[in-house]
């Protein structure tokens, strides 16, 4: 896992400034071949800049960066041959039909004519664009445009795919479609590097998540590992009345909270065994449980914990206070 030559993306100490504005402040990234990697961060964290550097669109001020085994500056063409990029803004040709857009990509990938046509048909089918294939792309809906965009990225069967906020602005159904596409790509062994503002998205898709905040990585690991890094897992139990609460607190051996509400919050490591033990103890004490909820920390919590702010930078400090 730590062998650098097996990494689809290896970046060391990447720095980039625009004038006085430091956008990336010494980033280290390693993405294993065939994995899905999510770069998570609020608007303005530097996600897009990082993607543009990895995709050879922008040169870093400093850092050693290899994608698919090639240096992004000195071997830019070799990198380009191995990658596919779907940016934040749709990169399709509005005046061409869906089929022509894909045909254009096939030609630019220098595919032989027949193979190009086969590939175009395959992708139209796979991305549910076959019916709209001969309509100009300007008539497509947002979801269709995104699907066409992705299909164009996949024409050359890239080893590494960059998706910059692939679901931003999409309706829930289109978002789910994009997720399914990413999952199927990962299943085929393609390395996927995606940026997102949505914690849920990173949680669902990514093998590894890195959290970017103001040009620095504040955490890196699997979604599971990141969740374990913060406390906050608990079981909320509701009782019929305060008396039942007192009995329960006694049975569980925890201090009785001063609050009047007939409920208890029991800190937990999220283990099923712990939950079973709590339920058994309550059962043996003869307490009726009205309602029970398990609160496991999600990436939202991780974000708050690591940056002291919400994933949306615009969120105010009061949110933090409410959370605490």
């Amino acid at each position: 896992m730590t062998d650098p030559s097996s990494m689809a993306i290896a970046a060391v100490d990447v720095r980039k400034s625009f004038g006085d504005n430091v956008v990336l402040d010494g980033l280290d990234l390693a993405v294993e071949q065939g994995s899905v990697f999510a770069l998570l961060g609020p608007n303005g964290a530097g996600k897009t800049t990082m993607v543009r550097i990895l995709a050879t669109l922008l040169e870093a001020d400093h850092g050693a960066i290899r994608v698919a085994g090639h240096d992004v500056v000195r071997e830019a063409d070799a990198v380009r041959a191995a990658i596919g990029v779907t940016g934040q803004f749709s990169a399709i040709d509005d005046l061409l039909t869906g089929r022509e857009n894909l045909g254009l990509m096939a030609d630019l990938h220098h595919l032989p004519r027949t193979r190009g046509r086969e590939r175009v048909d395959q992708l139209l089918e796979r991305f549910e664009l076959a019916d709209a294939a001969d309509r100009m792309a300007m008539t497509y809906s947002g979801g269709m445009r995104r699907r066409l965009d992705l299909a164009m990225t996949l024409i050359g069967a890239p080893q590494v795919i960059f998706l910059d906020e692939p679901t931003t602005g999409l309706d829930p159904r289109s978002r789910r479609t994009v997720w399914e596409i990413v999952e199927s790509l990962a299943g085929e062994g393609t390395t996927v590097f995606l940026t997102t503002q949505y914690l849920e998205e990173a949680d669902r898709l990514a093998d590894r998540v890195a959290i970017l905040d103001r040009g620095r990585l504040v955490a890196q690991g699997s979604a599971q590992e990141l969740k374990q890094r913060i406390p906050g897992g608990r079981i909320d139990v509701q009782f019929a009345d305060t008396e039942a609460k007192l009995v329960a607190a006694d049975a569980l051996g925890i201090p009785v909270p001063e609050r009047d509400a007939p409920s208890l919050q029991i800190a937990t490591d999220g283990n099923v065994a712990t939950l079973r033990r709590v339920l058994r103890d309550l059962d043996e004490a003869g307490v009726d449980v009205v309602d029970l909820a398990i609160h496991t920390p999600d990436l939202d919590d991780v974000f708050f914990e690591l940056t002291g702010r919400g994933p949306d930078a615009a969120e105010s400090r009061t949110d933090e206070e409410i959370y605490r």
Partner: protein
Amino acid sequence: MSTAYALRDSTTMLRRDLRHLQRYPGLSMFPILMPVVLLLLFVYVFGGTLGDGIKVGGGRGAYINFLTPGMLLFTVVGAAQITAISVAKDMTEGIIARFKTMRIWRPAVLAGHVFSSLILTLISLAVTIAVALLIGYHPAAGPLRWLAAVGILVLLALALIWLSVALGLLAKSVETASNTPMVLTLLVFLGSSFVPVASMPAGLRWFAENQPFTPVTNTVRSLLADQHVGSAGVKAIGWCLAITAASYLWARYLYNRRPVQ
């Protein structure tokens, strides 16, 4: 590596740009129709009077023969302006970022625009010439001189198209790109295309005689009238090559420098 695909990628981009011209007639019909409208306007509205100023008693017939070469230059200028708009449109859209992340011959994007504009220019020239002949243009030139005249116009077209590419790359928006090359249209009027420069006041006359469009117009006019071309020919070719070279370098610089969205 990627230069191996220079021709193939340029052809692919050319096909794309020709499709654009086809799908967006609002843009591509303008440079074809505009010279025809102006030709008819100048010949039938102003031609009677202007013709007498060119040759005593010459009238409309003399003016058609004087005007047509100038109108061909106007046609070339008009068609080149479209290039700035198409280039700016490309640059402000996400697809250029896609092209730049692909292993293609990078200048192919620009080459496609240049060749599609050249094709549009040739179509516009053919239409203008056809209409001029229909309404009484009588060129004295034989095939060789015709060929030379078209050659000069193509040289000018390349110069102005590359200039237009640079202006399109420079523009921050499509609107700017469609306005900047208008200066070129004005320059056509401040030359020998519509009236002889001898009729202009001294200062303006000096400018008209020394700006690039005048030797080009005069060369084309002399070639088509089967007259001696003189030093205008060398000046015309010199201007065209100089503008092409400078604009090409400028465009290349802007294209490689300009960040993409």
